[in-house]
């Protein structure tokens, strides 16, 4: 007896409510945008400069004490958050202290860090500074720039590759689905105000890769079915292709999610944001390859005249100019 996530053969009509799905996606994108514009992102020091200090102590954390110790130093905006993780024992209390980049300072100031550490050590005797990270405003500005370039480059490169392997309509559909995923991921980070740092950019790019993986598998089947059923309307070809690949789509998403959820729960708090972004991205990416990429492909229409004789269907992977 095999475990089946999806029945052996399915015949869902994915396009029955295509406007509804596009509408939902559109609305979510708008919500993400509005949240981004209104709240912005909770940028980590990688992107806006400043210092974070991770502290550990056996005593329970009283944020007011911490704030009292550091607040008198006149360092501007200071955020103190307690970190929770199931793996921490009762005598392990972790806090993150973030100090903004100091005005007029190009580089990092060790005096500031030393002053903060001294003040905290005074207030909480057994405190230990597990990690201290500072990024100067100069570097953080560049990091944002590089990150944006990286995401745009990745999407651009993918656009070109799919265009070469398929048709421009496929490329556009896939890329719009990618943009959808990236926007929604940034949106949820803005909505929940989760710290957005350099690793999240890596997660974003992985989401781009994953979502693409999914979309390409569906499109590959669409391409095959377009050749096979030359007279079938595009809508039905798309629906058939999605149904045929549905079992695989679910299998892969579920295995990946199993691995990611294990990491999310057990992987420790340091990379939780990163893993959260990927988990969310896998869910959104799976959704978008079915409901966004294909819907767009349907709206754009596809050239049905595959004038090239299909003489090498056995090794299409070598047929780069298909």
């Amino acid at each position, binding site marked *: 007896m095999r475990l089946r996530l999806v029945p052996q053969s399915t015949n869902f009509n994915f396009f029955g409510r295509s406007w509804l799905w596009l509408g939902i996606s559109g609305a979510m994108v708008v919500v993400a945008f509005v949240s981004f514009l209104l709240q912005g992102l909770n940028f980590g020091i990688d992107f806006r400069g400043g210092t974070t200090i991770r502290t550990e102590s056996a005593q329970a954390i009283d944020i007011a004490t911490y704030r009292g110790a550091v607040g008198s130093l006149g360092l501007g905006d200071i955020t103190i958050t307690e970190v929770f993780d199931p793996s921490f024992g009762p005598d392990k209390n972790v806090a993150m202290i973030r100090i903004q980049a100091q005005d007029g300072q190009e580089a990092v100031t060790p005096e500031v860090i030393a002053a903060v550490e001294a003040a905290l050590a005074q207030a909480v005797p057994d405190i230990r500074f597990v990690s201290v990270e500072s990024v100067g405003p100069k570097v953080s500005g560049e990091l944002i720039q590089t990150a944006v370039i990286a995401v745009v480059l990745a999407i651009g490169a993918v656009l070109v590759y799919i265009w070469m392997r398929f048709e421009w309509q496929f490329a556009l559909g896939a890329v719009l689905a990618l943009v959808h995923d990236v926007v929604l991921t940034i949106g949820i980070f803005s909505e929940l105000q989760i710290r957005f740092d350099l690793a999240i950019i890596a997660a974003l790019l992985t989401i781009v890769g994953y979502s693409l993986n999914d979309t390409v598998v569906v499109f590959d089947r669409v391409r095959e079915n377009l050749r096979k059923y030359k007279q079938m309307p595009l809508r039905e070809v798309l629906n058939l292709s999605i149904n045929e690949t549905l079992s695989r789509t679910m299998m892969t998403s579920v295995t990946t999610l199993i691995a990611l959820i294990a990491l999310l729960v057990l*992987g420790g708090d340091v990379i939780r944001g990163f893993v959260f972004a990927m988990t969310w991205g896998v869910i959104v990416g799976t959704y978008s390859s079915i409901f966004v990429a294909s819907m767009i492909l349907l709206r754009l229409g596809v050239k049905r005249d595959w004038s090239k004789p299909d003489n090498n269907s056995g090794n299409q992977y070598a047929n780069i100019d298909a």
Partner: protein
Amino acid sequence: MLQIDTWKRVVIWAVCALGILLALPNGFYGRVETANDARAAIEAGATADGLQEQADMWPGFLPSSLVNLGLDLRGGAHLLVEVQLSDVYETRVKGMWPEVLALLRTERGRIGTFRLQQGAPDELRIRLNEKPDMVDEAATIVRSLARPVASISGAGSSDIEVTTEGADVVIRLSQAEQLASDERTMAQSLEIIRRRIDEVGTREPTIQRQGDDRILIQVPGLGSAAELKAIIGTTAQLTFQPVVTRTDNAQMPPGAGNEIVPSVDQPGQYYILEQAAVVTGEDLVDAQPSFDQNGRPAVSFRFDPTGARRFGDYTAENIGSPFAIVLDNEVISAPVIQSHIPGGSGIITGNFTVEESTNLAVLLRAGALPADLNFLEERTIGPELGADSIEAGKIACIVAGIAVLVFMVASYGLFGVFANIALVINVALIFGLLSAIGATLTLPGIAGIVLTIGMAVDANVLVFERIREELKTARGPARAIELGYEKAMSAIVDANITTFITAVILYVMGSGPVRGFAITLGFGIVTSVFTAIFVTRLLVAVWFQRRRPKTLEV
């Protein structure tokens, strides 16, 4: 398709075996690390007790390269510094003054009197007081000091640019010389930083140039970034400068070409010195901790031949006048020159402790950094945090792995077992590759591996699902398996190439942990495709040939 040539089988198994062999040392990380360290120590000539036993903890015939653990896993200090390249222009241009002075003096009859002006930091500005109209003449004279630029790209151009502005002759470094100087400064800074960190003797520091003017320094196992800064940030700029006068007024204007420098052991005491140094730390060939005739700690030093000549000439000409020994913009002492000092060696005395004199000697020997450093980024990760992260990552990997293995068997039965064997080999291959190229594993890198565990089954899933579909058309199991592999191929290749593109972009654009993630993701894609289309297929083929099943359930 189920017929696989013997040589192919051999190659596939050989690759798997090699991967597992290369990955093996990582399973015994601590043991292999101790053995490697002991071997390195023995090679370096150490003969401590027990070293040989430590070296024998890991057999010599097995591979011993390990995956490097990134700072976030091992703990340590990370610094990104910017070298203030333009500092060097200033030193260079200002240092030309004595030479220019000597040359123009001989021509005073033609150009009249002149005076050094306080100009921008990267220029030397000389005003003709008596005969402003001779300014072009003077510029031509100064131009004779130009030397060709000593670099390939700057060949054919000269090192200085002499222009005139009103009655001023302005000397600047030429564009080509600035570029050449930047290259030299960076090379020198890297070398000096490397030597200073080596003096501390930690394991596998990373010292890398980044971009035009940056250096990335990562030292695993070091207590804090502040400690690292103390090691590399101490400039130890040693100069010997003529003393104009001494004063207790810090605000006193030093006059053109001079500077005011505080004394190190007499607070409130200042010296006005000529800015151009007679000799600098760069002319040193050696420095050793020693003691002066009163038995107080001191540092003895020796100059190279050019430095020795300049030092000798200066002392011969200036007997009776004071001479300041300046370290990092503080006057250590200003002895009066008693006699001509030939031979180019001397001793620095001051209020040193033995430790200070030893440190000073080390710093002097390592050489001064040619330019100031600006600290752009610093990170300290405690070893305990790193250990926690490894522990969490390990548990997450194991749980994720087992969950995926169980899920695959539940979904695909025997074929799931094949996919699982391939998955385990896949993870071994990733570690093998990482160890072989000496890549660094970071926390996001571990996430990359976990993600790969999830995604690695994708290629197998694609094939298995395809086989299921082909089975429906019922042309027999062998044909179905064959078609499954054939038809899934284009999807596998396209899907993985697109993901690989993003991994490459991440690697190129990213830095630090992000790059570590890109490496594991990229390797994961390559190995998962390899295991899915070669290893799993081989397993299926072997099984199929043995059993010859009439029906197939996937």
